[in-house]
């Protein structure tokens, strides 16, 4: 055991398998077709068929027992192809149910794994009786959320309000009426914090995708497009901006992979690293997609150019939790041994 930054053979197979799936089922045409809702039922069906939910659950709970690192490698592909499917939330919700382990939770988990029900989770507690901007809330069959120390579940009916949003995500506002308890006691707080850690690191991994792909598109454009007789990539104003973005993205990928790895291999650092990775990867993806878009000149501003798809999601996807500074604060609270009041 020593430093090894390459995916193992198994990990590479996993990456390749999902890359192939997304190549086929999540082209930018498909991504556009799924807008504005941001949910592509065919992609989601294919992901489920390939075990996207089952893999996330421990073997003891009937799943395939993938590590968080495995899930992060898949999330990278998900982000790279802007997958219009609530995979991250479904995975984290399923893992949370397995961890809670009450009869209600187990029942919900069975539905999620075998029954094909889409269970998601709210990242923030309700305010004034309303869960706001629930990830996948517009398409979920059930929403897990925490209120007053209890874990509850809600089957959002006609009352949910779909929210059009910058990231083309199937979020919605959902009134909490009609919710029922799933668990209570200290396990709830642990489960929620653990779920948030996992969602943060998977979103961090997902952000490396649009960042890297936006950079590739930008580099390609900078090589092809000419101004004053030379490729625009030969101007330092363009080249240096892309070099900075590439550096940040390389760092971002190392950090989210380390964070995901630590979930099982160095669990004492997981919470800190997950939050650091979320903040850093979000910034890196935004920087890369903004620069790439800007260097496209007026073309980047056209809806028909793909680059805007990446730019909008780099802002919108991670914002379901909060801005990077909130995550950096969460990480620092861990480092200083404070309780996660910022979570």
């Amino acid at each position: 055991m020593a430093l090894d930054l390459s995916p193992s053979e198994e990990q590479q197979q996993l990456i390749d398998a999902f890359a192939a799936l997304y190549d086929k089922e999540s082209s930018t045409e498909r991504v556009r077709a799924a807008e504005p809702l941001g949910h592509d039922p065919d992609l989601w069906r294919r992901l489920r068929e390939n075990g996207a939910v089952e893999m996330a659950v421990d073997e003891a709970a009937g799943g395939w027992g993938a590590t968080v690192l495995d899930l992060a490698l898949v999330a990278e592909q998900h982000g790279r192809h802007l997958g219009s499917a609530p995979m991250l939330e479904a995975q984290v919700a399923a893992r949370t149910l397995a961890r809670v382990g009450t009869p209600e939770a187990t029942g919900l988990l069975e539905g999620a794994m075998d029954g094909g029900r889409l269970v998601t989770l709210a990242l923030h507690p309700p305010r004034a009786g309303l869960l706001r901007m629930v990830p996948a809330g517009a398409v979920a069959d059930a929403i897990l959320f925490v209120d007053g120390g209890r874990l509850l579940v809600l089957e959002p009916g006609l009352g949910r309000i779909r929210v059009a949003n910058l990231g083309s995500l199937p979020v919605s506002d959902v009134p909490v009426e009609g919710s029922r308890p799933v668990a209570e006691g200290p396990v709830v707080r642990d489960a929620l914090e653990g779920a948030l850690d996992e969602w943060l690191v998977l979103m961090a991994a997902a952000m490396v995708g649009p960042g890297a792909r936006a950079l590739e598109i930008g580099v390609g454009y900078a090589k092809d497009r000419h101004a004053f007789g030379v490729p625009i990539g030969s101007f330092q104003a363009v080249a240096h901006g892309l070099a900075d973005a590439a550096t940040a993205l390389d760092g971002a990928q190392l950090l989210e992979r380390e964070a995901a790895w630590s979930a099982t291999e160095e669990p004492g650092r997981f919470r800190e690293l997950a939050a650091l990775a979320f903040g850093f990867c979000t910034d890196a993806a935004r920087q890369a997609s903004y620069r790439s878009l800007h260097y496209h000149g007026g073309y980047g501003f056209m809806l028909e150019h793909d680059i805007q798809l990446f730019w909008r999601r780099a802002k919108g996807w991670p914002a379901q939790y909060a801005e990077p500074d909130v995550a950096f604060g969460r990480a620092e609270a861990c480092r200083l041994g404070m309780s996660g009041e910022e979570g």
Partner: protein
Amino acid sequence: MDFRLGEAAEDVRRQARQFLEQHLTDEVKEKMHTTGVHHDWDFHRALSERGWVAPGWPVELGGQGYSVVEGLVMQEEFHQAGAPTYGVGTTMIVAGIIRRLGTPAQKELVIPRALRGEIIIVLGFTEPECGSVVVAAQTRAVRDGDEWVINGSKMFTTNAQEGDYAFMLTRTDPDAPKHKGLTTFLVPLRQPGVEIRPIRTLSGERTNLTFYTDVRVEDGLRIGEVDGGWDVMAVGLSLERAGAQGGESSRMLAALERWACTTPEGGSAPPASDPRVRARLGRAAAENEVSTLLARRSGWVQDSGALPGVEGSMAKLFASEAITRQSADLLDMLGPDGMRSEGDPTALAGGAAEYAYRFALGTTTYGGTSEVQRNIIAQRGLGLPRPR
């Protein structure tokens, strides 16, 4: 030193506000929003009736004889209110060029109708393959007796679907050095061979890609000399007056300040009670004040008869980079709720930050990219050698 704009300018401001209250109806704004077209014929005709199509022109030529700063104040109000002025803007740039360089017949054809608000002229400089380097234009114009035959395409010909003419930069001598073989024409747009393909942008605005296939224009609509198009462009640039900056930033800040003072449902205090919120809004306020001051300086320099330097470039660069920075920051400040789209009934602060975040992207590109402005400032302002 006096930072007051003066009575005359404040009077223009009052009149502009009255005008906008009357003519910038919710209907006009709603139509702009749904169509993405920043031109409205009713509004345009009202402007014309008020004599405000060319406020800076001499009274005897149909203008109001406003100083540059007075015109700027009018623009400040129009931008702040989000009025549809893009069409009249491009029309009057071209009318201004024709006033200087046009033949009597051209003046007769264009100027009275432009002042009456009857026609729209769009700009046809940029092409798909040359971006902001307009000197590389490839659209061909070939003489055929008393006419010219035009073939090619132009990018970002905003309002072409409403337009009567495109003021077009064409290549008439492909063998001459780049800037030597160009000629400008006033090309009638309502004729066969003109194809207009709408393009939607991130901010919801509509622009166009336009194609020209064997389009004919009589030699009488040629502006300037044959192969003298570059000189015509230079005159156009020299007519550039100070442009109001930061209207969209001010609107966003005003909306977010209202948000900051309102305690949210289920909350215990308004957002403004958080010092982080105040600091972020305050930084935007500082930038907006600077955007306004830089634009006013540009106007003042022109009014005072001094040779304009890089004031216009600085004003444009600063304001567009500022809205890019601040819209990203303030959108983040709103948290998850900030992502609600402008137009969604649940949007925070009317979706002002979400809209500004998309809108900002255009500002650092249109009218000369930030990189081009920095080149100009470095060379003409600081005297640095030509960047490479």
